[in-house]
């Protein structure tokens, strides 16, 4: 086997390293588009039900803590910044930089998940968990059914998002070990790059979830 020409940065089926990078980027984007359609179905269900029960959704949305939601958005945006700095360090071939920024990203990601767990716990204490005995939302009278639709969507959407965060935390951990083992260089940083795309995508999902779940008609309160 003639392996002298074949490296991680240039496998034999590609003409140039740039072509190989473009192929990896394109593949990742196609995966992310399937994710857009996956989350898209939920955003669609959300908007249809919000259109049908606008008043109940406004009351239910106002029961969420907007300051915790906004703070968590900032945490996630910070993690996107540290992730892009990790990708930049990998493009420049700075191994210690990759590890430093990835660890920061990991910490911020876990902070987000911790805050999310706190919020979910609060829902259990306030009897805002749909399907559980004693579900009750104040201020909507007998419209408890539509209120539980809001919280079903809330748990499904933030839950699916958090699941993606957990996967992201796993990917970051793997990357940190690979970076420590010296797998990446200024010629080969594709895994850091496409993991960055995944992390930013999950951030974008939250960019839409935050205003749609937390910020409906806040002025009414």
């Amino acid at each position, binding site marked *: 086997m003639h392996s002298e020409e074949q490296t991680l940065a240039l496998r034999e089926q590609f003409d*140039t*390293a*740039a*072509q190989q*990078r*473009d192929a990896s*980027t*394109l593949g990742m*984007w*196609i995966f*992310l*588009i399937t994710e*857009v*359609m996956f989350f*898209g*179905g939920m*955003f*669609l269900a959300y*908007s*249809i039900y919000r*259109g*049908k029960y606008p008043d109940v959704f406004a009351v239910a949305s106002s029961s969420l803590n*907007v300051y915790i939601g*906004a703070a968590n*958005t*900032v945490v996630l*945006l*910070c993690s*996107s*910044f540290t*992730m*892009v*700095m990790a990708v*930049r360090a990998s*493009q*420049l071939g700075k191994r210690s930089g990759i590890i430093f920024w990835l660890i920061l990203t990991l910490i911020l990601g876990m902070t987000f998940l911790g805050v999310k767990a706190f919020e979910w716990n609060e829902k259990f204490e306030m009897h805002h968990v749909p399907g559980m005995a004693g579900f009750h939302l104040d201020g909507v009278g007998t419209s408890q059914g539509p209120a539980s639709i809001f919280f079903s969507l809330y748990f499904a959407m933030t839950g699916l998002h958090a699941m993606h965060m957990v996967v992201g935390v796993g990917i970051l951990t793997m990357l940190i070990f690979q970076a420590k083992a010296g797998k990446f260089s*200024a*010629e080969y940083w594709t895994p850091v790059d496409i993991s*960055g*795309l995944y992390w*930013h*995508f999950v*951030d*974008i999902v939250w*960019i*839409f979830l*935050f*205003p*749609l779940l*937390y*910020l*409906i*008609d*806040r*002025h009414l309160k």
Partner: protein
Amino acid sequence: MQEHTESHEPVDSVMTYALVFLALIAATVITTAVAFVDLGAFSVVVALAIAICKMLLVVLFFMHVRHSAKLTKLVLLGGVLWFLILMGMTYTDFGSRTWMGVPGR
């Protein structure tokens, strides 16, 4: 053995990323503050417009799409199109039934 081909990705400056990051934080503060103002039906329009701006910043700068190959950009636009078909066709279906209260019908 670094390839210096035309499509070699340029490395953005820390300043560029820092400015994009600050813009994202500012947009988060604005969207939260605006939610407490009574804009009627426009409140969701403003919230989505700000979210779309934030998405574009992340996609173009953090995800490097402004440096990406034309094929990648085309595939992305295709994805957006399919998403709009998903939303648009379902809205026309639900909107044309009596299930939802559409003004003027």
